[in-house]
């Protein structure tokens, strides 16, 4: 910033001098503008870290498969919708609002959505928690962290190849697995089959 002051003074002192020198001074001033932009970018970075700090207050339950598997067979009167997703998975993020809407609109019908994040553990603080906060997710979000995928993927469903998004809808009588993306209408239709 001190340099900018000098350039300004140069510009004033060059006012009565040759046009060429004036141009040089103006060019230098222009680069000051760029520095200023850079300087302004800094506070927004600290705003980012503030956001991350706020998001870290979100409590995230993390399970290995042994701990998680109980959520796949709860014997209550609810229709459970378990969606496997991750912040890095674009089609998952696209369909999240539909699960959120379902959770809200069908709560009276005893439908409960659980969003099971398969995000990388080293990104829980930096990506997952800020995402949960920013999108104001109301459904229960938990994280599944178990590297031995070949042992647990077939236990979720024997047909699951391991691609996400993937969803399970179940009640105490039956269970259905879907390795696909949903529109809200499709999701609603599948859930309705469990309500009748």
């Amino acid at each position: 910033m001190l340099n900018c002051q000098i350039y300004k003074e140069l510009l004033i002192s060059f006012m009565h001098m040759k046009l060429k020198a004036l141009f040089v001074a103006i060019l230098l001033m222009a680069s000051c503008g760029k520095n200023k932009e850079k300087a302004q970018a800094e506070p927004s970075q600290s705003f980012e870290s503030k956001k991350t700090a706020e998001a870290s207050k979100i409590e995230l339950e993390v399970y290995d498969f042994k701990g998680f598997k109980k959520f796949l067979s709860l014997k209550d009167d609810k229709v459970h919708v378990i969606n496997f997703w991750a912040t890095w998975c674009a089609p998952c993020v696209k369909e999240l609002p539909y699960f959120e809407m379902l959770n809200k609109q069908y709560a009276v019908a005893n439908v409960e959505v659980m969003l099971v994040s398969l995000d990388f553990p080293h990104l829980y603080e930096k990506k997952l928690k800020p995402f949960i906060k920013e999108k104001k997710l109301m459904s229960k979000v938990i994280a599944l962290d178990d590297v031995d995928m070949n042992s647990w993927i077939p236990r979720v469903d024997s047909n699951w190849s391991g691609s996400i998004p993937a969803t399970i809808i179940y009640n105490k009588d039956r269970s259905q697995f879907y390795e696909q993306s949903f529109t809200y209408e499709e999701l609603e239709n599948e859930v309705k089959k469990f309500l009748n």
Partner: protein
Amino acid sequence: MSLFLAIIFITAFTVGNGYKVGDVAEDFKLKNIDGKMVSLSDYQDAKGFIVTFTCNTCPYAVMYEDRIIALNNKYESKGYPVIAIMPNNVKVKPGDALPEMKKRAEEKDFTFPYLIDADQSVYPKFGATKTPHMFVLQKTDKGNVVKYIGAIDNNYKDATAVTTKYVENAVDALLKGESVKETETKAIGCSIKV
């Protein structure tokens, strides 16, 4: 009624189709990042192939890049080269377009072909659903027989913490003339973008 049955029949066959272990994989002709077309039949001296469906944009695929390079370094000279195929629709994932593939291959010094399944006709034949998705093929008199389908190893997070190297075990067994013990494994991956 017969139409109804036909629909069920077709659905049953479109879900989970693609090669099974033991099937003969058809050859393909796909464009490499250098512009040349590559087929399995170009590899006259190969004993088989480590075919991987992978891409630039999937974090799982990226986490496995170094291990895919290591596979080629270890097995190309033994007759099992890596053939990488990018199956995504580049309109959905512009980061997987051919120039981007070329850039990534140069950054990481890929020592194997990185082909684009531009019309998305090859990955469905294999039944690949995600990236990364591995297929080990063995060259036989009847063609390239699928011997292994699945993951590279059992720890995506930490290569040093891996306890079972599925692909290496499969190729090692084939090189010794033995049968592959674990022929299919599952792993999380990014769905192939259509």
